[in-house]
């Protein structure tokens, strides 16, 4: 690249923001369906399982002595953020490369593939922030929130969701077409993770051999952080460990997103 063309390259923050703006321009017309899946569905889960199913459960040591709905809410925000993240990191990314071709369009402008990759990740982060805040506000109105520690839950949810999104975006960027890979991710990773990683019941109720698998999921670390913050039960070293694991996933995943975008878009 010569200095003459480099002069036209926007500064990275500007370029990243332009990418986000581009994604927003499309989303503005199509937000309806994601509102259903990322806000209404988790609220329904909270109502049905927290209040309906929860009415059958006596507060006990397993629920930290809390009513079930309050036990569930800080974990459900993490689980639903992860689910939304999984969706946002798969079909839309492949579509932008292949079916809609929007990423190819961006690549023909002065915006670099790295800036595009960062813009895509920032966009997912902003999408998740809005739906997670919306869910928590509704949960608070339903009486499922115990303390201001829920703000920590929000950050736990976003961190865990990005820790999952980054590697998945990196993977989606390598696909040439959607065979069965995405269905396999949802069926064999997202669904079991949601069911088993401590959202609905404590992990120590699972057989011992399953637990090490659970420890590998970002959802479990996010849930532990979220409950620790919401209930004020956090201890220094476990919290540090969960944070380190999730940050590491974000950094490593992010590195591969940047690399894979470059491989696909730069000739």
């Amino acid at each position, binding site marked *: 690249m010569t200095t003459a063309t480099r002069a036209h390259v926007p500064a990275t923050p500007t370029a990243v923001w332009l990418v986000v703006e581009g994604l927003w321009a499309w989303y503005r017309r*199509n937000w*309806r*369906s994601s509102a*259903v*899946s990322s806000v*209404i*569905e988790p609220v*329904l*889960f909270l*109502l*049905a*399982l927290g209040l*309906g*199913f929860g*009415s*059958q*459960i006596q507060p*006990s040591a*397993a*629920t930290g002595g809390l009513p*079930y709905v309050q036990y569930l809410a800080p974990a459900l925000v993490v689980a639903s953020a992860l689910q939304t993240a999984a969706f946002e990191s798969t079909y839309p990314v492949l579509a932008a490369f292949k079916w809609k071709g929007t990423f190819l369009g961006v690549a023909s402008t002065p915006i670099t593939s790295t800036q595009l990759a960062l813009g895509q990740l920032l966009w997912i982060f902003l999408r998740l922030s809005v739906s997670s805040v919306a869910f928590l506000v509704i949960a608070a109105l339903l009486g499922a929130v115990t303390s201001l520690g829920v703000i920590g839950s929000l950050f736990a949810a976003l961190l865990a969701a990005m820790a999952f999104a980054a590697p998945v975006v990196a993977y989606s960027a390598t696909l040439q077409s959607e*065979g*069965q890979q995405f*269905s*396999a991710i949802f*069926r*064999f990773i997202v*669904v*079991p993770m949601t*069911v*088993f990683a401590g959202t*609905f*019941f404590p992990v120590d*109720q*699972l057989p011992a051999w399953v637990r090490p698998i659970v420890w590998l999921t970002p959802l479990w670390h996010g849930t532990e952080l979220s409950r620790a913050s919401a209930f004020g039960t956090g201890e220094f070293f476990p919290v540090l460990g969960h944070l380190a694991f999730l940050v590491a996933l974000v950094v490593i995943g992010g590195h591969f997103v940047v690399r894979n975008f470059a491989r696909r878009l730069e000739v």
Partner: protein
Amino acid sequence: MTTTASAPNTTRTGLLLRVLPVGMYAGRSRALVERSLLVNRRAWLQVVSGFFEPLFFLFGLGFGFGKLIGDVVGPGGETISYVAYVAPALLAASAMNGAVYDATFNLFFKLKYAKLYDAVLTTPLGPLDVAIGEITWALIRGALYGTGFLTVMLGMGLLTSPWAVLALPAAVLIAFAFGALGMACTTFMRSWHDFDLVQLALVPMFLFSTTFYPITVYPEGVQFAVKCFPLYHAIEVMRALCTGFVDFSLVGHLAYFAVMAVVGVVVASRRLGKLLLA
């Protein structure tokens, strides 16, 4: 279209073939099932994975939730374990989900993008062949999943009555009704965005139709609303058959699905005819 539609007339012998409008049905829906079979040979992972989803829920909810909740009151007023309570409901829900997703997402893709049925209708097959063929394939898949799930339930000792042998045919009927209705809805859809309406119907139904807890949790008015949902009746049927507390109300529940299936097939084939032959 008249020339292609009149071709099968020479072989119209059965009553159904004679009473239906010309070109709707050629008695060759088998060909579409065969096509699905051939296509799905390459998508075996998707087919197999459909079996695991309810299993994950069964293990997760049954054992995890089960320990939180202990025993519950079953259909006959008898105390049963929570996992025995939830399992039949999950079977009903997976019959619903499998049938509806197949009849909506997959069908929409074939209808709008793959243009599969436009191609099919240039052959002697009619819209009713399409409707019957696609539903039959969905049912074959559903029956496979149902068999797998019931086998696991049997292995876990959750099938306590001989009535359970009827659980599989009942699951197929339920899937048929949901599939037919889902197909009818798909013919009205304009874009992928309409699928959030499908989600909006399925998710609340899955969560609130006494899948996870008894109906007595709700106040009276809500109880009535829940009893209108088709999944509620499906779960009642499955719970009754799996635990053996069968009474006359079963006929009522099954009639619900018979009506739903007929309405679904009639609307779906008419609409398909309109969309494809117009």
